């Protein structure tokens, strides 16, 4: 059992957890993830290790509710436990001093990018962060990102906060201003990562993305997480999750991630329905 030491919402549907996992806290490097299982009926889902505290022996994960497992996870509170947490998984980010490095996060992707952005800074780069959200209330980790950046921007699709527009528009502006960018890291929804790759491609700027295929074991055993990179099949859980954005077949990834869409939709509906019933029963018995 892995105890939840801290749990709080950062934005609607986005929750931060600190979980007791001292060995993982000690070992993990930027860009790595864990696989968790809530209870004995639970699915194994991958979540990036956003941060860790060796002294407290905890790791931080930041979770956006999108389906049954993440919704259930985000209903857990401090003091409760997860049945399984395994990691650290994946190849750590390979970050060196290159000059100017840009970290782009979209939605919960900001949380996934955070540890690697911090590593960019540690390695002595000039760090620019661009973090996008649909609207002001969904902006996360603004202060944390600002603290590690030399320049930081928040963008919102609806213009309710910061720069009005997409992260790619902000990136394009930086390029157009003549800034020499040496490395771009983009993590977020697949269309966003693909769009970033197309912005940087003509300029030959090295661009890294973190891919999020469906996983089971996270050790290279099932091959379900395979993605096409440079025309070759790679296992994202061991060969990745970070890959060269200019070589990734995003269309295949996007399609493959819809593989269980029907089952996922039904499971979430049923879960939400049961939760409502539970609430009703609670109010009745009050």
């Amino acid at each position: 059992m892995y105890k939840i030491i801290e749990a709080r919402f950062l934005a609607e549907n986005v929750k931060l957890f600190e979980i007791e996992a001292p060995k993982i806290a000690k070992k993990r490097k930027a860009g790595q993830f864990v696989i968790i299982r809530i209870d004995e009926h639970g699915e194994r889902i991958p979540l990036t290790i956003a941060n860790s505290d060796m002294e407290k022996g905890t790791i931080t994960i930041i979770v956006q509710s999108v389906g049954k497992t993440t919704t259930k996870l985000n209903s857990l509170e401090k003091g409760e436990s997860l049945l399984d947490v395994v990691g650290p998984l994946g190849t750590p980010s390979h970050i060196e001093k290159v000059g100017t490095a840009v970290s782009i996060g979209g939605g919960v992707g900001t949380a996934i990018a955070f540890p690697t952005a911090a590593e960019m800074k540690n390695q002595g780069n000039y760090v620019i962060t661009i973090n996008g959200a649909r609207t002001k209330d969904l902006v996360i980790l603004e202060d944390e990102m600002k603290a590690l950046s030399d320049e930081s921007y928040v963008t919102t699709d609806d213009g309710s906060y910061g720069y009005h527009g997409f992260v790619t528009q902000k990136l394009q502006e930086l390029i157009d201003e003549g800034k020499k960018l040496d490395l771009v890291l983009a993590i977020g929804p697949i269309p966003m990562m693909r769009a970033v790759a197309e912005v940087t491609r003509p300029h030959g700027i090295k661009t890294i993305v973190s891919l999020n295929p469906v996983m089971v074991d996270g050790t290279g055993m099932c091959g379900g997480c395979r993605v096409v990179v440079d025309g070759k099949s790679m296992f994202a859980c061991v060969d990745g999750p970070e890959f060269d954005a200019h070589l990734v077949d995003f269309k295949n990834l996007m399609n493959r991630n819809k593989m269980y869409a029907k089952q996922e939709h039904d499971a979430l509906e049923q879960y939400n329905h049961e939760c409502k019933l539970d609430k009703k029963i609670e109010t009745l018995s009050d």
Partner: protein
Amino acid sequence: MQQLTAKERMKIPRNPMVEQDPNERNKNFLEVNQGYTAQMAQEEAMRCLACPKPSCVEGCPVHIQIKDFILQIAEGDFLGAVHTIKQDNALPAICGRVCPQEEQCEQVCVVGKRGEPVAIGNLERFVADYEREMNKVEIPAVGSSNGKKVAIAGSGPAGLSCAKDLAGMGYDVTVFEALHQLGGVLVYGIPEFRLPKDIVAKEIDGLKQMGVKFVTDTIIGRISTIDELMEEEGFDSVFLGVGAGLPWFLGLPGENLIGVYSANDFLTRVNLMKAYKFPSEDTPVLQVEGKNVAVFGGGNTAMDSVRTALRLGAKNAYIIYRRSEVEMPARVEEVKHAKEEGVQFLLLTNPIQFNGDEEDWLHSVTLQKMELGEPDDSGRRRPIPIKGSEYDLDIDISIIAIGNGSNPLISQTTPDLETSKRGTIVVNEETMETSKKGVFAGGDIVTGGATVILAMGAGRKAAEAMHKYMSDKA
């Protein structure tokens, strides 16, 4: 015991295994084989000629004293029989079910030269089940603690057997397992209808009672390197029984379409994660009911996959194999069961391409007919494509079951561990010791995908050598 002549014994027909009806069992996940009754077992034991130089023992990879245990069964001493087996085989209830007896002990049984061999596997299974069902399983005595610590990576048959022997000798044994459940392929690969998970769980319970510690969710090489285990965590010796868990794909166009699974992915979802109970279990598997499913390969993994698909309601379930039936590596019984259950075999047939729609859903596979040519390196006749024989078959789900390579997680983080070109760990075959001092390995990670009995044997051989290593060191 009734005295029969050899001739009379040879006349007794082999007792067939009691099986669930094929048209019932292809809809459920309950065990297909129901086992012998005591009477059937004794009758079957009467068929043994008690050869002075029993060839069956030679045919057994771990040299179980087969003749002796069969004589004990004939005398009705079932517990004595299982104790005899356990001297050489730590996991008889499992091996009695999954060993390829027809190419081991039963292949060389003298009775088989003129008819059907003694059903050695069925007898092994019977006595092991008898012991368990009668609650007569004795937890082996544990030697007094010698204060030495052993780490075992992997809880498959290799790791479990190694743990059992070392715990018995008084070592402080910890087994680290990457997954959330113990048992290796026995739980995530081989389905319930062939090997009930309760049996594996009982074995593991026995080890726990012997004091073996199990730590799940722990990937050696990631969370602790082997050096850290030995230098920081105080383990005196390490055994690597991490299996061959890296699925091979065919490398054909369209292999990343939705609906193309590796057998490991498909079987893990269904067996380990219980996806057949979705949504009460959270892990999904693509809908199989009413679909056309093709499984590529001819081994046990292929048979398990195709029979699982059938049980999930597949409309057509095909085995597609590029050689002919004689070359199939699967246990003969599994092939027979698959056929009885309604699996369709497309032999001498090879896929050349997977075809999908705009949204990457698989809808058909292009196949090609093959003919057999000269023997290849494996001694089996090489399949050669027949030009112009290509055709498309409508398929919704494809499962690739052509074997596993070695998972590189441990070798990548242990530079001084010698591996072969294939990625398997190189060992001294007498001692199972690797190139790294104090580190031993056995099972599929050494041999490549093989069998439960070989993994079990390797785990025990290593335990012996580890004992010697640690005793000499002290």
